[in-house]
């Protein structure tokens, strides 16, 4: 096996997780937990693919995916921000809604044939760097490069700009923000929308770049859940999110590729001869997600790892100002 090739493919597959994770990170930083990432990604993947088939323009596919998933996220926003319902329940419902809509609208898409995909290219000088150049900058999809830019930009936006300051305040102490004239409700709607668009982009990245096509709910295969786990692992920081997303992308590829060869390091490959071991490996990312989610739901631990203090709580504007 050529490990640089596995890692190269891992970066591409990690880009999917990266977009979804960063999007959820924005929503959570504003105080809204959206468990509907998986559903929104399916919407994105399906609408990107079908738009591209219909128009032949993958860029239009990306755009439609982001808008469609963003709009779907606003159902969740309305339920939890305006109606102040439970964020977990509403998020789960959104997952099923997104999956349902995309399965119905995507009926027949799997036999649709080939489409023109988003371009792949290499970055001239950077490809020459040993190993790194091969893994990160050679023959990657344009969306992978977008991902590289997104990470520092997100960090800068959150930590060094005025809207980022307001975003953090709304997620940490909404009544303090409200008292200073920041519209908490509008901010939360907006960042849930951003989260939806990014999940849509993640879906489009799958169906138009990483593993092109529409394979109904197998298209995303639970990556939306991994993204939610990664937000907690990342402690709501974009750079840590990137590390987690790329590591998991690489792991996904490795788990796939390791089952191929007959001989591994000079031994008979146990993963080839025993398919149950392969299933076990495939389970690992989801096991990680479960563990991280359990940790993230413990109140005391959440405080320690720096969760936004108002995460999960509806903001009710009381006269007491508290």
């Amino acid at each position, binding site marked *: 096996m050529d490990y640089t090739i596995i890692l190269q493919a891992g970066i591409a597959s990690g880009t999917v997780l990266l977009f979804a994770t960063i999007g959820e990170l924005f929503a959570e930083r504003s105080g809204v937990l959206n468990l509907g990432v998986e559903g929104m990604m399916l919407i994105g993947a399906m609408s990107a693919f079908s738009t591209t088939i219909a128009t032949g323009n993958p860029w239009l596919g990306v755009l439609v995916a982001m808008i469609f998933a963003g709009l779907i996220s606003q159902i969740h926003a309305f339920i939890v921000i305006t109606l102040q319902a439970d964020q977990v329940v509403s998020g789960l419902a959104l997952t099923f809604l997104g999956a349902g809509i995309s399965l119905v609208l995507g009926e027949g898409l799997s036999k649709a044939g080939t489409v023109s995909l988003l371009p792949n290219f290499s970055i001239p000088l950077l490809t020459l760097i040993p190993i790194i150049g091969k893994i990160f900058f050679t023959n990657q999809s344009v969306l992978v490069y977008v991902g590289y830019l997104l990470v520092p930009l997100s960090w800068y936006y959150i930590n*060094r*700009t005025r*809207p980022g300051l*307001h975003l*953090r305040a709304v997620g940490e102490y909404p009544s303090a*923000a409200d*008292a200073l*004239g*920041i519209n908490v409700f509008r901010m939360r709607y907006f960042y849930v929308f951003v989260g939806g668009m990014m999940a849509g982009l993640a879906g489009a990245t799958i169906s138009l770049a990483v593993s092109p096509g529409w394979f109904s709910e197998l298209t995303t295969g639970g990556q939306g859940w991994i993204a939610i786990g990664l937000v907690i692992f990342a402690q709501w920081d974009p750079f840590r999110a990137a590390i987690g997303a790329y590591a998991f992308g690489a792991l996904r590829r490795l788990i796939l590729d390791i089952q191929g060869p007959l001989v591994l390091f000079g031994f008979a490959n146990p993963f080839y001869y025993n398919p149950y071991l392969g299933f076990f490996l495939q389970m690992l990312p989801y096991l990680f997600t479960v563990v991280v989610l359990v940790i993230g739901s413990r109140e005391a631990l959440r*405080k320690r790892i720096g969760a936004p203090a108002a995460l999960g709580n509806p903001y009710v504007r009381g006269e007491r100002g508290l």
Partner: protein
Amino acid sequence: MINQTSSMPSSPPQAPLVVEMRGIVKRFPGVLANDHVDFELLHGEIHGLLGENGAGKSTLMNVLAGLYRQEAGTILVKGEPKAFSSPRDAIKAGIGMVHQHFMLVPSQTVTENILLGLDDPRFIMRLPDYNTKIAELGERFGLKVDPRAKIWQLSVGEQQRVEILKMLYRGVDVLIMDEPTAVLAPQEIEGLFVTLRAMIAQGKSVIFISHKLQEVSVIADRVSVLRRGIATASGVPSKGVSRQELARLMVGRDVIFALDKKPGRPQDVVLEVTDVHAESDKGLPALRGISLNVRAGEIVGVAGVAGNGQSELSQVISGMRRCAQGQVLLNGDKISNRNTLFGIQHGMAYVPEDRTHVGSAPNLSVTDNVIMKNFRKPPISKNGLLDMKAATKHANELKLAYDIIVPTVSTPVRLLSGGNLQRVILAREISGLPAFMVAVQPTRGLDVGAIEGVHRLLLAQREAGAAVLLVSEELEELLSLCDRVYVIYEGKIMGEVMIGDDEPDEGAALSLSKGLVDTIGQMMTGTPLDQIQKEGVAAHD
């Protein structure tokens, strides 16, 4: 100076009026919080707004600060009528308020908190520029605080300075301070007063809300008094009115300041805390080696500015928090790092800080709340089932004995006033005849009558031979109830002082307690007792 005989002299206003409130009415469900209140603020004055807890002071000022809308009445600012629909409008008109509960984002820096909600900077924040600007502003008003520090790293006193800076940065002319001294150590109060005077010197006006007489008569030029939503005095020069008169205006009757505290007869040690270390919810060290003891028949106080580990200490003792090191013994049994039931079975009573969520179950009835500790034992438990008749009887007995004012014992406790709720909690805790009781801020937010009631119950526990640990931020309360007081600072005990109970005469007692307050105050800001004593000796040499 004290002028007992004259009626309220109302000298003609010398300075122009900045704020005029006329006939303000504000109602909450079941309470008339402000009943046609008039209020006037002169340019360049410190105006004390005095009244008991619940008198309507915060409500009146929240109306002025744009947080609440009045139901009737008008507000004029510099002669112009104003209708504020948000605090932002009020700030635009030059009026800013520092609330009792600070509104600061803990994870952000001082500068970030001050810039929050402003239009400048538009997009990119160059924090270093703003840091210098804010440091300069702080210097001008004697408000020392590091602009780059995160809020959670600051003491409560420093956080208050940030709140004041937030308003000054927005250029307000009128600053409303709601009970600003409640969270400060005596020395910090001095610093605050210096700042307020500096603001007056630079042409600003201040409204100073307090329920403490002596503070108001020290700092305020004029005083207004509220009682149950009605203004009983409006803009009286503080020089021309005695404290007794103010007290009567506040409470509506003569106030007896003295409590009937019998000489103490301390017995054996009941509670022994040894070298306890514990972490806060955030995982930061909150207690760093606390040792103290409480004997039967004495009340021992824990003094300190809020947030120095008092909550964590009481939680470790009551069994609600684990300690990483050290132990707590109750009558020789180790109760730390065990469950709360173990402590209860060994005679622990706990009156927690949070009456509504920890101390009681708000939606349950008075009966359910008072049987929460003894429901396992007969007569309430009968063959493993609850005997509701016995429970109701028990609750009715407590209702009588503890003067709980409630239509029936099946009323949910969330409908009770603070004083009544506290009596429900005390009734439950005391009726179990505890060997030891820890009470945290048991009188916070109660009115004078209710405070007296709680104090009497605590003293009765002492008489009955129980050991009581009283955590309080009110120094006066500690001085009048306790036999000994420990002072806590950043999770360490700074020292322990004895409070004598046989006072020779009033004058001597006053100077004695003044010396005590000074010593305790120094410890509250981090000077250990042995160091204070060393310096004291050095000064005498």
